[in-house]
């Protein structure tokens, strides 16, 4: 395709420095994203995991600059290939959107224009960004539909979104996102609106395309299971901040943040006996208008003490590919003593599952 020729294959693609996105609303300022920093290398994929309301979608959209101007306050830097995106302005961003970075949305039913043929929707960015003529754009659109594995692509070009199945719609949306050969692809809960059977296919498709095109992918989801097999790194987000970030294998093997631990405990596992009770996380995510002082997870954390409620732990690197923000991480003395307490009172079994 028409990817820039001199695109470097390695190195840092994206760097966030203390990104904060606040919304001013009638009730007060919502701190949806509150000081997030990380880097993402070219060709790598990062999963952002969090409950609904943790700010993960807002994070993705503020990196891309897709938030409404009104009422949005954005601080911090987003460096894309060394360039600060905030300095680009809306016009400059428009050149990036679709071409350099693009996004796959959660619900293909509402995110595809219901009144426009699929072919037209795919060829639109081609014609706008790459100045293709009609015939060329149509041919490229057809090729894209084949790439994303839609059956009878020729016929689909002239169909409307409501005529496709849910899985096909999501494939069509991926085709639109891939049209101009982006360097960075955001996927915002790409499988939530789909049947379970289709979910894995869509995730595999995204990963295949990532490898083929050497894209970086940021996969936003509430489902740890989705990111487990499909991303290089995972960032766990809680109440607008990063709780923990590590490579996928490291995170699952060696989780440090109590929130990550709690998340993992809430997923059923094959190595546990059936009918093992899952441990739900008590309480509710904090109000983002007046977040708790200190660690934001403290009110729901079984290991929290006064320090956690008073001082904010910074995201600190424990090793090259693992950083977390916690005063008493998994494995610390306080964690150990509390853990023993829970086991002795019979809440937890010795194996870590619930008794």
């Amino acid at each position, binding site marked *: 395709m028409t990817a820039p020729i001199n695109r470097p294959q390695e190195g840092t693609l994206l760097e966030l420095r203390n990104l904060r996105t606040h919304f001013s609303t009638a009730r007060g300022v919502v701190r949806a994203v509150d000081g997030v920093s990380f880097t993402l290398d070219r060709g790598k994929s990062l999963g952002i995991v969090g409950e609904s309301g943790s700010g993960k979608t807002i994070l993705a959209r503020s990196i*891309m600059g*897709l938030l409404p101007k*009104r009422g949005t306050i954005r601080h911090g830097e987003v460096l894309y290939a060394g360039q600060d995106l905030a300095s680009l302005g809306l016009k400059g961003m*428009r*050149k*990036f*959107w*679709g*071409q350099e970075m*693009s*996004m796959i*949305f959660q*619900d293909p039913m*509402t*995110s*595809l*224009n*219901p*009144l*426009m043929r699929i072919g037209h929707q795919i060829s*639109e*960015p081609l014609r*706008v*960004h790459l100045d293709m003529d009609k015939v060329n754009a149509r041919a490229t659109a057809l090729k894209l539909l084949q790439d994303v594995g839609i059956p009878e692509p020729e016929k689909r070009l002239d169909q*409307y979104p*409501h*005529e496709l199945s849910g899985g096909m719609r999501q494939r069509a*949306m991926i085709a*639109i*996102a891939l049209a101009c050969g982006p360097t960075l692809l955001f996927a915002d809960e790409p499988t939530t609106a789909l049947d379970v059977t289709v979910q894995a296919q869509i995730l595999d498709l995204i990963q295949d395309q990532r490898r083929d095109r050497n894209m970086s992918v940021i996969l936003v989801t509430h489902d740890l299971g989705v990111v487990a097999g499909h991303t290089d790194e995972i960032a766990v987000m809680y109440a607008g901040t990063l709780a923990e970030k590590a490579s996928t294998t490291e995170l699952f093997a060696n989780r440090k943040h109590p929130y990550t631990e709690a998340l993992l405990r809430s997923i059923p596992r094959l190595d546990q006996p059936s009918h093992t009770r899952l441990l739900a996380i008590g309480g509710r995510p904090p109000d983002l208008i007046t977040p708790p002082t200190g660690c934001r997870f403290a009110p729901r954390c079984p290991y929290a003490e006064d320090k956690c409620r008073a001082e904010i732990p910074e995201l600190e690197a424990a090793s090259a590919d693992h950083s977390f923000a916690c005063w008493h991480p998994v494995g610390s003395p306080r964690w150990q003593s509390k853990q023993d307490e829970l086991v002795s009172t019979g809440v937890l079994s010795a194996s870590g599952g619930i008794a």
Partner: protein
Amino acid sequence: MRYFAQRFLQLVVVFLIVTFVTMVAIQAASKDPARDLAGPLNSTEARVEEIRKHYHLDRAYPIRYAYWLKNLVTVDLGNSPTLGASVRTLVGQRAPITLLLGLYSIVLALAISLPVAVYAAYRRDGPFDRFISGATFAAVSLPNIILAVLLGYFFATRWRIFPYAASKIWPWDNPGEHFKNVALPTVTLAVGLVAIFVRLLRSDLVNTLQSDFIVMARAKGLSPARILWRHALRSSLFSLMTSVALQFGGILGGAVVAEQIFALPGMGLLLFQAVQQKDLLVVQACAALFALAVVIINFAVDMLYAVVDPRIRHARALG
């Protein structure tokens, strides 16, 4: 296809009911329809009886109506005693003026309201939007009689920019004079329409602009103009189209006022005069034509929905 047929049938029924009720009510309201139709001048008893026979006024209403329908098909609807011409000639002369008037006002209103509404929705709650919101609110509240009197006074009497007693000039004879003649009545009708259209379209657009596929369109890197005109506008046209159909009856009603004030010899004026002079057949013919126009517009808009929205097209093709 079944849907179209059903809808068409429904509108035919509507047309028949309107014309039947009109006929019965008009003739029942008159003490003696035959005497009214004989006219004030030559109303000898023999003449009245002759007319009673000729128009079957001695028969029951359904039979009278059947004869009227037959006459409608052959476009021979009798004569007007007061205006001394056949109803067919009268309506044929007057109808095009009113039709053009309605058409001009709708086209003018759409031409103004589309860009205004799009820009107001794009810059929602900005100064332009607020100004337009206030202005359309005032315009919606401005009765057309007031508007017409004001326009007539300033533009015709005082400044003499446009003629007052408009005469009938066809656009193909002298376009300049034609548009000069219909300018004031057109504006009279269009102002209220613009206000209604802008308010409807703006509020629909504001809703559409919040939907997911607009965020998607932005993420594709499309320009605001493209997003507004290609993506948002089309999804926001439904209320506007419904409104055009709904307002059409009102436009024709407004045409009566406008034509009366600016002395434009259209159907509205004809109907007004016929009503005053109890020219029953002319009233019936005018009412039928009004109803026909409303019915056709409604059918057309109904079909337009399907053109605009493929989902309706498919749902109907199946139904």
